[in-house]
């Protein structure tokens, strides 16, 4: 009997309950390039600090697709007329782009390197000072390995997608056309990716941080008409969702400070990078084209772990096995002032060759500017204000976290502490 292309399937998700997929999406999920995500951990070696952090990019990708769909449906139900007027959508066009957003959300992380962001620094150079990012690999995989599954499924007769349409929405290509409006749901300050990873990481890590009211946020998300200096429509929220949006930003702040930039977790990022430098040809991942892409897809956590387990990953591989990581000896404030930078320089000089690694955070909890979340207030006359202006809580969170952490070898920690204590430096 022929396969029913309209059949629906459900996948159990620990965060969202049942996630529904159709036969087309199932076909894509079954491709080896997507199944590889089962072998890429979401949070690298975080389990060496928080043992529950064993989840993978596979379940996160399904969660992002699910969350992006909820956001999309909410926006369309509340802002259908605006979308029709400003972006010339028809009902059919909205149905088509719903599918496009689902596929882009599902596949946005398909180009991750082993252990996710931890090994990203070893992606090769593209041009000048610019390096390839995992999104470039995602787009290249979609255009090659996943092209058949996207373009040839019978359900695609209804939409006529080319793999390039999905890739363009992920990488921000001009081919996305008006669908570029939906990029805020894939890659923005209130995107489905962020909403899913905060809830999922919090769940698996087992911390109370990272929680926010997803349902409230979804119910308040809307399209906002052009106005003021903005000549374009934007994804924003109604005033009623203000506190849920604040909670999202705070969740990110707490997860970053308590989990993602945990001093020991960061130490294992350093060891992993050294391992990868040793086991990759030329110390870099191949470029995302031709045979390079095929070779890249052969890299996953299992392969790296196998090399570590077989003793072919050198000193840093042994350190991971033995949980003998570098020790943090000094850190700056989360937001460095000029004085902090001077002090950091002084501490580094004092540590001399005891210093084995330095890591610097490069995140802001929230950024004002073009992607500041617009909030629509309807008190008296409709007025759009950025979240950073609406909320005093958010206004206090816009500085860039450029905290620096300094590390020494575990066997020389006391020696380093003695050196720094002489002048009373802040230590850990």
């Amino acid at each position, binding site marked *: 009997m022929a396969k029913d292309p309209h059949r629906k399937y459900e996948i159990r998700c620990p965060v969202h309950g049942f996630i529904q997929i159709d036969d087309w999406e199932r076909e894509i999920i079954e491709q080896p390039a997507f199944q590889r995500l089962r072998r890429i951990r979401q949070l690298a070696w975080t389990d060496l600090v928080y043992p529950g952090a064993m989840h993978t990019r596979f379940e996160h990708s399904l969660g992002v697709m699910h969350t992006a769909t909820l956001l999309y449906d909410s926006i369309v139900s509340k802002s259908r007329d605006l979308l029709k007027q400003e972006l010339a959508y028809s009902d059919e066009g909205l149905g088509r782009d719903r599918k496009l957003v689902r596929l882009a959300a599902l596949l946005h992380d398909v180009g991750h390197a082993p252990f996710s962001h931890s090994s990203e620094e070893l992606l090769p150079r593209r041009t000048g000072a*610019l390096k390839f990012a995992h999104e470039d690999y995602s787009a290249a995989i979609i255009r090659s390995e996943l092209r058949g599954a996207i373009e040839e499924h019978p359900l695609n007769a209804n939409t006529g997608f080319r793999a390039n349409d999905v890739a363009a929405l992920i990488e921000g290509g001009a081919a996305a056309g008006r669908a570029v409006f939906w990029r805020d749901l894939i890659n923005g300050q209130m995107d489905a990716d962020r909403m899913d990873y905060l809830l999922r990481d919090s769940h698996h890590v087992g911390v109370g941080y990272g929680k926010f009211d997803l349902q409230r946020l979804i119910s308040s998300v809307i399209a906002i008409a052009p106005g003021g200096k903005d*000549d374009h*429509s934007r994804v924003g929220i109604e005033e009623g969702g203000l506190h849920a949006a604040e909670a999202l930003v705070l969740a990110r702040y707490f997860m970053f400070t308590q989990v993602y930039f945990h001093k020991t977790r960061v130490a294992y990022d350093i060891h992993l990078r050294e391992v990868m430098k040793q086991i990759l040809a030329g110390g870099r991942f191949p470029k995302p084209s031709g045979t390079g892409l095929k070779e890249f897809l052969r890299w996953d956590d299992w392969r790296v772990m196998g090399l570590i387990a077989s003793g072919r990953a050198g000193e840093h591989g042994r350190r991971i096995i033995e949980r003998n990581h570098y020790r943090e000896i000094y850190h700056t404030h989360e937001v460095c002032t000029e004085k902090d930078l001077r002090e950091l320089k002084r501490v580094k000089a004092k540590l001399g060759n005891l210093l084995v690694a330095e890591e610097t955070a490069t995140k802001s909890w929230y950024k004002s*500017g073009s992607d500041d979340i617009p909030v629509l207030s309807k008190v008296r006359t409709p007025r759009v*204000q950025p979240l950073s202006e609406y909320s005093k809580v958010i206004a206090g969170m816009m500085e860039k976290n450029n905290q620096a952490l300094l590390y020494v070898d575990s066997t020389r920690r006391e020696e380093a502490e003695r050196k720094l204590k002489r002048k009373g430096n802040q230590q850990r």
Partner: protein
Amino acid sequence: MSDIQMARLATIVALVERHPPLGRTAVMKMCYFLQTLRNVPLGYRFTLYSYGPFDVRVLSDISAAEALGGIESKTVLYSGGYGYEISPANKSRSVKALAADFIKRYGPDISWVVDQFGEFGSADLELLSTIVYVDREYAQARRRQTTDALAENVQEIKPHFKGAYVQSKIEYLEGECLLRSLRTTSACR
């Protein structure tokens, strides 16, 4: 802080100093123009949104430059909307000193970008940078297009602009020899 980060902060301060106050959109788009039109190696990764080419790291760098006292910003509310004004602050010189060689080398490019685009409002800068983005994507794929086709592609992304207005901005950029994918022959080639 890495060399490239210091170069970015210094560049942002230098941009703002040359044309104060600048909006955040203006800083974002001028960084895009610097990297794309003048090949200044800032290492940003611009991708396309409905508000034009954008890299969230520019905003992070604006915040960092502000934390170091190189610039200061304030919000300006308009009827039905909002914007930002960034001006040099008392430590602008010391932030530029973080990458003095870089600023010396690329100072003429920074001045060029400010001269070329400093008088445009944020909506125009978003449109101009979107035109350049679409143009470069075609040029990179070694594809040629007519002015009409380029205008059509840009209008798909920014449907709020009238066709004639998009055309006028394409003509401006073409007149300055800043586009690469057009089929038309011009004095630039």
